[in-house]
């Protein structure tokens, strides 16, 4: 790696008058494989090393990124960046960072099947997965594995070295029958090496999924719109908690910094302590979960990561904070700042955002329902930019009658406000599951790996159509 260049950059910034400075040197390696209808469209491997730097001069924030690994070029861009940032201070926000403990740390996650291993056995595994769905009318699979080595230093004295591998698999299926079609996309992801492809139980899951979707397509019924009970499976619980509990509690949204694109929040600065969900609801964000897709131990501002409870018994308890927003709230950062790569600034991001399990068995969740809908998976979803009203449309979904799952249902729609959704939950199952996904935020866009999940949830008296 080029640690000497990072060390030089930090010192040079300080010499040039930066009050605060941090340098992220990142060396990433990745492989991508894309299969379309069983045909290997393209494979790629990429290696890139670059440096991302943040600093303040005249209390104004500057950022620069460069992948030319030469001292003179770095000096030139630092000088230019300082000049531009000073020039902007007349209309610049006065940027302050919360005081945080400086850390010296080194951590890494071992890969059993490394990013450097040749692609033949990796491809073999992908083709074996493709075989399971060879009769599906259209199918698309992409698999990525990566390793990011990061060297982070800041002017507070932090020095954090990490090696994080990630692997993900995405698929998209289209099943046709009598001029009708059903589609489904799904993603697996872990902070591990390529070995996780064998640990995800993809073969069995895919075979079951294709069977269920085909059944839905051939035999699914449409329901009469009305008020009824709803059970969300962990996948649907996960997207709901991510979209309508995680995002609105990001402090940078609440303070308006992301207002241009990602949006603001219906949650206001003084809403800690307000109840927006039922007593059954406890929600947390935990980056320290081993192997999770959103795993990290120190954020991109050098703050040690920890588990944060966002809601307890439906009451807002904590926002996701970075060092800038923490100053506004007169607290410490809770370590939620991440950048997708060296060429992006750190923003407040969710990591693994989950609904805590309850005490019900899955049978008990269903038993109490006379008539309702079971949303096992979803396809279409969206939520407004203040995170107030959202829509989830079932992919695999069923009718519940007298406590039993009876018939498949075609694309039932839940369109509901955030408080109505979380206030209507009266039961949670004991078992939780996690789902990987990319979370988008910022301009230029940053896609971050996250987990979303939780248990089965029972919602009473919601409108379904």
């Amino acid at each position, binding site marked *: 790696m080029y640690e000497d260049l990072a060390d030089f950059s930090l010192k040079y910034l300080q010499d040039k008058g930066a009050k605060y400075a941090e340098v992220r040197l990142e060396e990433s390696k990745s492989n991508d494989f*894309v299969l379309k209808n069983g045909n*290997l469209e*393209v*494979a790629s*491997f990429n*290696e890139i*090393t670059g440096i991302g730097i943040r600093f303040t001069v005249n209390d104004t924030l*500057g*950022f*620069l*990124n460069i*992948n*030319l*690994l*030469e001292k003179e*070029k770095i000096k030139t861009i630092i000088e*230019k960046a300082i000049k*531009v*940032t000073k*020039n*902007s201070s007349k*209309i610049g*926000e006065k*940027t302050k960072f919360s005081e945080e403990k400086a850390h010296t740390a080194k951590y890494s996650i071992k890969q059993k099947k490394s990013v450097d291993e*040749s*692609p*033949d056995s990796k*491809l073999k595994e992908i*083709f074996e997965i493709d075989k399971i769905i060879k009769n599906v009318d*259209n199918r*698309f699979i992409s698999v990525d594995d990566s390793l990011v080595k990061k060297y982070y230093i800041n002017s507070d004295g932090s020095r954090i070295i990490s090696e994080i591998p990630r692997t993900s698999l995405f698929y*998209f*299926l*289209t099943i046709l029958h009598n001029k009708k*079609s*059903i*589609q489904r996309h799904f993603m697996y992801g872990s902070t591990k090496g390529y070995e996780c492809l064998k640990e995800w139980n993809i073969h069995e899951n895919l075979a079951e999924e294709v069977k269920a979707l085909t059944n839905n397509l051939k035999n699914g019924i449409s329901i009469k719109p009305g008020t009824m009970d709803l059970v969300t499976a962990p996948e649907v619980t996960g997207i709901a908690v991510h979209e309508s509990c995680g995002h609105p509690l990001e402090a940078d949204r609440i303070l308006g*910094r992301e*207002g*241009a*694109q990602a*949006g603001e929040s219906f949650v206001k600065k003084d809403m800690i302590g307000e109840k927006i969900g039922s007593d059954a609801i406890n929600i947390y964000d935990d980056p320290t979960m081993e192997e999770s897709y959103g795993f990290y131990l120190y954020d991109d501002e050098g703050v040690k990561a920890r588990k944060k409870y966002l809601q307890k018994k439906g009451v807002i308890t904590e926002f996701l904070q970075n060092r800038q927003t923490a100053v506004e709230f007169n607290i410490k950062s809770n370590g939620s700042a991440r950048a997708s790569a060296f*060429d992006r600034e750190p923003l407040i991001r969710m990591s693994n955002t989950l609904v805590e399990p309850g005490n019900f068995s899955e049978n008990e969740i269903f038993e109490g329902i006379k008539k309702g809908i079971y949303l096992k998976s979803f*396809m*279409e979803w*969206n*939520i*407004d*930019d203040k995170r*107030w*009203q959202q829509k989830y*449309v079932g992919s695999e979904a069923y009718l519940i009658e007298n406590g039993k799952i009876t018939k498949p249902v075609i*694309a039932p729609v839940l*369109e*509901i*406000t955030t408080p109505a959704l979380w206030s209507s939950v009266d039961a949670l199952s004991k078992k939780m599951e996690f789902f990987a996904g990319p979370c988008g935020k910022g*301009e*230029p*866009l940053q896609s971050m790996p996250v987990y979303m999940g939780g248990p089965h949830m029972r919602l009473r008296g919601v*409108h379904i159509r």
Partner: protein
Amino acid sequence: MRESAEYLLKKLKEKGADDIVIRSVKSEGVNIKFANNKVVKNGLEIMHGIGVFFTKDKKILATNFQDKDPKNLKKQIELFVNSSMKFSSFLQANKDYNGIARGSFKYKEIKDLYDKKAEDLDEINCVQKGINTALKNSEKTNGIFEKAIEEGVLLTSNNVDKDLKGTYLYFSIRAFNKDGSGHSNTCSRMLNKLEIEKSAEEAAKIAKLSISPKEGDSGKYDIVFGRMPTIVFANQIAESCSPFSVESGVSFLTDKIGKKITNIDFIDDSLKENGYNSTPCDDEGFPTQKTELIKDGVLKTYLHNSSTAKKYNTKSTGNAGLIEPHSSNLIIEKGKCSEVSDLIKEVKNGLYVTNVWYTRYQNYLTGDFSTIPRDGCFIIKNGELKNSVKNIRISDNMLNIMENIVAISKEKKQLKSWEAQNPGFVPEILVKNVNVSKAKI
């Protein structure tokens, strides 16, 4: 820059690669983010990327080379080529691959792709101008200003050698006024055509008009879509025009070639003067063109590179993408629609939607989707704008939307957006009978 590209090409040829494309681009960029009327980030970047695409026996590898040690460039390239060839040897052949374009080619001159004035631009002044203009009619502004100056070279094993140079400017501003908001974007290759103040005025005007929105109602509406949502729809149509999307099951234009699907003309024009994505050659060096994807409402062709064109027994439209063809500048023309100076006057009972976000599909093949109006969204009664509304959702089908476009505005504007990365020159459009849903509780 050229030296490394040429040596990569030479070495890959020597090692037996069949088709080779090297694209080396150096980019210097500025990215200024503002929020709550203040600059919150001054971003600068210098990046040098060398994209490498090659095939060997129809096995396709796409990778990148980074010059990490300029003193030992040749040695690095030789090691890189050896490891790339080894990686490629483990791959399977792509049965659908039919090769890249065979040159040499003559390219058309396109006006206004590079602006020297952009080099020494005072970007902070641009941002300040935008904020100050918007603040005349609003309380708060958020947004971004981006500038990139790119220089590079495209080389292929099939006699393409083309120098590339361009400036890229983009300004996005969202204005807030109490509980109202408006958003407007502009992009350009030339500084004097970047409409910073006009966009700021538009965003603030919408913000002021949209104060105190009432709860909207579900139902069927005739909707005038502003340019921000129209560029989102244009992007959806363009993505569906890719054969890669068709074959992946994610195109609502599957099996629609030769069929009447709308009333507009829909054009992809890589040669457009000042076009944000204008370029004389596509990613394989094939000369670009203006392509009528939809003419008088009939879908004429998909976007093609040389490989997909051979598969579909047609000619390349100059839209490579080496793996997947992509659009350049999207243009909506009136076709069989009427062209109206004020679309709102045409509507008896409808909505004026100035922006949308979070467009997602239940089924890409059928086009069933929803998207959420954000910023100013207004009731139209008897040709006049009434109160603004909130908390509604457009839940419809993309083919229905296309079929029901009945009029477009006279004036077009070049823009792209967060949700619509492919730029275009688009008007406002009037769509009849659009389904709107909302949460009951």
